[in-house]
């Protein structure tokens, strides 16, 4: 194989992998603008933020209100992958979620800022921005 051909191929592949990894980040804000409305709701004075965990977390970025009692609802549905092994460092939470079910995590009244959840291996994550 020619050296130049090979360098070109390698470059194309690196860009391809780059798109797989980082391409999504750019699309996120627009995409989540739509979903945010659906996954945050306030019932009886308590704010519920719902995240689906299966093959990653969705929505990846949510926006919620700060300083009101908030509960995080993580839904699993036949989730066997890493997203079931949830870690939220800022509140010291780590648990392997049931394969199918809803996990309700009390966040108290979060101050404005960002709460980040990860799967234990670190390749999936989600963020909730409190304003």
């Amino acid at each position: 194989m020619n050296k130049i051909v090979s360098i070109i191929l390698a470059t194309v592949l690196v860009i391809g992998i780059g798109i797989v990894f980082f391409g999504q980040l750019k699309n996120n804000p627009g995409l989540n603008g739509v979903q945010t409305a659906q996954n945050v709701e306030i019932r009886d004075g308590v704010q519920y933020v719902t995240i689906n965990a299966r093959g990653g977390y969705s929505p990846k970025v949510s926006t919620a209100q700060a300083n009101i009692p908030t509960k995080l609802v993580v839904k699993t549905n036949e989730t066997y992958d890493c997203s079931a092994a949830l870690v939220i460092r800022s509140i010291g939470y780590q648990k392997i979620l049931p394969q199918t079910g809803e996990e309700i995590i009390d966040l108290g009244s979060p101050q404005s800022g960002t709460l980040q959840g990860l799967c234990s291996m670190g390749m999936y994550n989600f963020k909730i921005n409190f304003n």
Partner: protein
Amino acid sequence: MKTYTFYVSGTHCASCKIFIEDTLNEQIGIDRASVDLKRETVSIDTTLDESQHRLAEILTEKIHHNGYSLSVEKKAGEKKDNGVIWQALPIGLAFLALFFLVQKSGVLNLGIGGQTTPVTSFIIGLIASVSSCLAIVGGLVLSLSAKVSQDNVSDIKTFVLFHIGRLVSFAALGGVLGAFGKAVGINFTLTSILGLLASIVMLLLGLNLVGVFVKNKIALPSGFFNFFRRIEHKTLTPLILGFATFFLPCGFTQSMQVSALGSGSFMSGLFLMLAFAIGTLPILALLSFGSASFAHGKHAPLFFKSAGVVVIGLGLFALLAGLAGLGIINPLFSI
């Protein structure tokens, strides 16, 4: 008194020169051994009447435990190496691209309904073995297998022991989880740290397979590789490594461990984890025995370098993800 010059391979540090010279000078009938690191040659004066080829064999025997060998002709394989990396790079990257694309596509997020039985955990094992877990467990298996094959240890035996260790430990630990339930917790931070260690091993072995350490003569990791060379000869090592894969971070494994925890008895936990491990076996066995057969074929240099590229890619991925998982860095990506 005759003077001979041999080509020497494996000299990656300045102290190698001293070591080889000292060792050879100790031999009866050898005088004034001197190593030229730049040209990778050793010249000796000898009073022995052996042929040059025979001398190369005799002397190699004295130093090959430390990873050096002498030859009369320059080894042909090493001359070609420079070209091979240019073939290996796109091959390795293509595998990485394919792997990450499959992850991203969501094909692997299959639903398996109902309760977890040994049959479903077998299927989950099959899925897990091509999932993101492959980045850590598979990457580690591939890098170790390729390295073991490259060093030409009795590789088949080593791999069989590794896989036996893995199956037995999954069954036994699954049984323990089933029997003792919640008393045994598997710590996230511990598995994350193990994952980080695994990714560092992968990176080092990957760089070694690609040949970076040989080419640039980086002296630092020689201790690591000598250590590695020593332990890979032991029978117990592959068994223990197989055992340790139980604790490597992998969402599927952890999820199965929870199922085993909840299963309530030794036997049910045992069968769940065993079935899962058997499910992961085909791909992992393919990785290790595939390495062995490639390593002894004529495309060996290409295979080692391609495997090196793949392992470096997976190692980097696992390292960055692992650091993010521990909260040390912000997650850079989400696949």
